[in-house]
């Protein structure tokens, strides 16, 4: 929908990252809730500019905000037993089309690891509940 994916804003547009991006609900191009923004990655360029390159989703990244060491432990546990194998999924920032209460991302979440937990819960639990559909 054109309204959901507007054109790139004008040069000079300002964005507040803690308020409008971090911890916001991500919604994919099919309007599926696709997890939250757990991290924002920026790249320090040779010219001194700090350029935002991606948003991240994944429990290790969320926990790392409280304690990087505990985040590493969670990632290690995830690699051993996790559905996503401890992977933090990164979405290029040029796929972020709208920010605010929701962050609209121009990706198909089903084709990414973003919905791996939902798929696992469906396959192992929900589909075994009598009358359940997903």
């Amino acid at each position, binding site marked *: 929908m054109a309204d959901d994916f507007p054109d790139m*804003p004008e*040069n000079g547009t300002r964005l*507040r990252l803690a308020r409008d991006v971090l911890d916001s609900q991500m919604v994919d191009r099919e309007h599926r809730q696709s997890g939250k923004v757990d991290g*924002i990655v920026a790249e320090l360029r*040779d010219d001194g500019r700090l*350029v*935002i390159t991606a948003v991240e989703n994944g429990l290790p990244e969320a926990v790392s905000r409280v304690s990087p060491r505990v985040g590493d432990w969670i990632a290690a546990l995830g690699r051993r037993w996790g559905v996503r194998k401890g992977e933090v999924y990164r979405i290029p920032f040029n796929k972020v089309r709208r920010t605010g209460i929701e962050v609209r991302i121009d990706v198909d979440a089903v084709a990414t690891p973003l919905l791996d937990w939902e798929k696992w819960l469906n396959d192992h639990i929900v589909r075994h509940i009598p009358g359940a559909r997903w």
Partner: protein
Amino acid sequence: MVSAREIHLERLIGCKVYDSEHRCAGAIEEIEAELQDGEWVVVKVLTGPIGMLTRLSSLGVGGWLLGLLGARKSIGGYEIEWRHLDLADPARPRLTCPLGDIG
């Protein structure tokens, strides 16, 4: 060419910023980016209560309420331009100038 140095911006939130004389400019509460030629570039960080009120979208209302209480001028915090910030150690951001120069 692009430098390989990556910084996780979410980990900067809550970090206290000090100047070269160990004076504290407050904890980072908000980070502001600007669209420049198709890329979002960090231009400013906000620290202290002014940063928190901005992050909560309540600087206007909060400032008005504090004004009623006569405490508007006492809202602490700074708006720090990116060029004044040294992130050599992202866990310990530092000012590249004295605190007085950004007030």
